[in-house]
């Protein structure tokens, strides 16, 4: 057992539990549980959004992808950043102005049918579960390698921690875990970037020169086309990336934790700088790993480059730095999965239980109990699924989550905000079309159907790994056709009221927004 690594991991566990303890004392009602009492500042929330978003897949996966595939690895990361402009310009402020605890709350200002709330909540849960399994399986493998703990033990540790944060500390604990993780991740990547740059005589140009001869790819390392060979698949992936973020429920719920539209805007603006700075630094990490770890060593292990960052830390700063970077990766995983637990359990407790089952008549105490029990439920389900998925290749689940967000949630959100004729039936058909088409196309794709290594051993029916280019238009089409075919009476007033509230933050209807 690596003692330094163990100490760092323990420090993170203790630190986050202390945060949870102090958060628990403040989490006395559902409003604080779901939104941290709207008391986060824009800057704090911006850090939390970054912490919620920059997953282990970004930190470990993109570093590895750059180290192995050069330019294409970097290209992949850009979409994650630019997508925040869509969030900033179009989605964040209206969702804050309309909403209270969940995505469905924002939509309910215009359409309050229970069945729509049910579908929105279902999508939230589906996205959270896909995302979570990918994160947890990655976490298990990582901790297994770093601490030599058994995979199942690792999953149980991460799974219990995330559940504890959410059950006891709700949004307050989750936010602070995410804020601290964002700071740790930025410092960790900055330290490594500086060391890498120093090794290249502080010259960016020299680094580009050297890396061109560091790998078997040679000059081609710097050229596009090492990872993404099918243009259509590349475009499809980028489409899902840039439109997906704006539909991710665990990101949207972060807009409800600040007090007004201006703070919401400033949160996203902060996140753009933090996430951007991080992705710029992944170049140093990736190039550093390619140059100093050695290309052959990176290929080792079934995760194909996922350990590039810790290995680089080891090459640059020995055990100590490697332990620190591994602990940062651990904190990264914890922050992301607890955000997912919170968004999934709010869909269960607030949408399904309080609104659909109890008709909004549940007492504050009952709602609080439901929130805690559903967090425990989500935690257990995630752990069980992650334990079962150990041997499976689940990396594609993150892009599937983005595809569902882009194909099912985003069309519904955009049309609710901006299309006068849109109605409940349209919203439901659109969401279900987007959800089902994304999932079905992925099942028929080379991700799952592969004659050699697939879950289904057969030739893929749908040729693209990323369904976005088909499923996103289908999501919009479903919403459009569903609206036209239904006999619902158009309710223009409701649209104008929602539009007014979305853009001014002044509630037109007497909501019980605190």
């Amino acid at each position, binding site marked *: 057992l690596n003692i330094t690594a163990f100490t760092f991991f323990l420090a993170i566990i203790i630190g986050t539990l202390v945060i949870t303890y102090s958060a628990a004392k403040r989490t006395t009602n559902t409003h604080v549980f779901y939104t941290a009492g709207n008391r986060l500042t824009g800057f704090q929330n911006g850090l939390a959004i970054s912490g919620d978003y920059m997953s282990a897949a970004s930190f470990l996966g993109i570093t590895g992808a750059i180290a192995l595939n050069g330019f294409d690895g970097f290209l992949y990361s850009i979409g994650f950043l630019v997508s925040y402009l869509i969030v900033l310009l179009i989605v964040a402020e209206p969702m804050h102005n309309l909403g209270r605890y969940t995505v469905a709350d924002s939509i309910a200002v215009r359409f309050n049918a229970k069945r729509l709330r049910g579908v929105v909540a279902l999508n939230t849960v589906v996205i959270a579960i896909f995302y979570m399994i990918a994160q947890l399986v990655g976490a298990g493998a990582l901790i297994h390698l770093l601490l030599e703990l058994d995979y199942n033990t690792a999953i149980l540790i991460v799974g219990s921690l995330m559940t504890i944060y959410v059950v006891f500390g709700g949004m307050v604990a989750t936010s602070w875990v995410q804020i601290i993780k964002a700071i740790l991740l930025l410092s960790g990547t900055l330290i490594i970037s500086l060391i890498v740059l120093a090794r290249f005589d502080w010259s960016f140009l020299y680094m580009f020169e050297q890396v061109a001869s560091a790998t078997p790819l040679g000059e081609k390392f710097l050229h596009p086309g090492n990872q993404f060979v099918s243009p259509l698949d590349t475009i499809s992936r980028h489409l899902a990336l840039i439109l997906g973020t704006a539909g991710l429920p665990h990101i949207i719920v972060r807009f409800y934790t600040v007090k007004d539209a201006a703070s919401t805007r400033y949160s996203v603006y902060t996140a753009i700088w933090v996430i951007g700075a991080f992705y710029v630094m992944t170049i140093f990490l990736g190039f550093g790993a390619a140059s100093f770890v050695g290309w052959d060593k990176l290929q080792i292990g079934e995760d194909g480059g996922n350990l590039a960052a810790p290995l680089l830390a080891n090459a640059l700063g020995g055990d100590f730095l490697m332990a620190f970077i591994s602990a940062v990766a651990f904190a990264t995983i914890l922050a992301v999965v607890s955000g997912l637990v919170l968004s999934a359990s709010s869909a269960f407790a607030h949408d399904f239980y309080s609104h659909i089952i109890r008709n909004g008549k549940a007492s504050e105490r009952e709602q609080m109990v439901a929130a805690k029990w559903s967090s425990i439920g989500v935690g257990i389900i995630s752990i069980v699924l992650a334990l079962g998925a150990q041997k499976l290749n689940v990396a594609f689940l993150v892009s599937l989550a983005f595809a569902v967000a882009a194909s099912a949630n985003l069309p519904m959100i955009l049309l609710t905000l901006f299309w006068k004729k849109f109605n409940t039936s349209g919203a439901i058909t659109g969401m279900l079309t987007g959800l089902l088409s994304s999932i079905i196309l992925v099942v028929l794709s080379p991700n799952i159907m592969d004659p050699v290594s697939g879950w289904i051993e057969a030739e893929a029916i749908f040729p693209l790994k990323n369904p976005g280019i088909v499923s996103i238009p289908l999501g919009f089409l479903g919403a459009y056709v569903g609206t036209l075919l239904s006999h619902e009476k158009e309710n223009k*007033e409701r649209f*104008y*009221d929602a539009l007014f509230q979305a853009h001014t933050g002044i509630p037109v209807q007497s909501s019980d927004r605190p």
Partner: protein
Amino acid sequence: MRLFEHANETQIDLYKRLLTEKKRFIIPAAIFLFCFYFGLPVLTSYFPEWMNIKIWGNISLAWILAFSQFIMTWLVGTLYLWKARRFDALVNEIRKTSSESSLAPSAKQEGGFL
């Protein structure tokens, strides 16, 4: 618009101006960022030879364009933040000119939504 049965002239004016100004910024900005963003994967997928032209040392056009996506994101974001001060000012005007009561009656017709 039912909402405006209870709102005064100034408010309607301000609100209309808010929507127009928002549209005037957001729609072109969104179209621009979409084109700018997809320019990169389209160019790297379909015109890889051009993208490998070296611009600065070993740094090729592809990398310059990739970096420019970051600059673009930060610039558009900053521009929006700056523009949005004007939106906030308009919203504050609307709040000031409306006592909440002038907007609330429409809510009573419909009943709460929860």
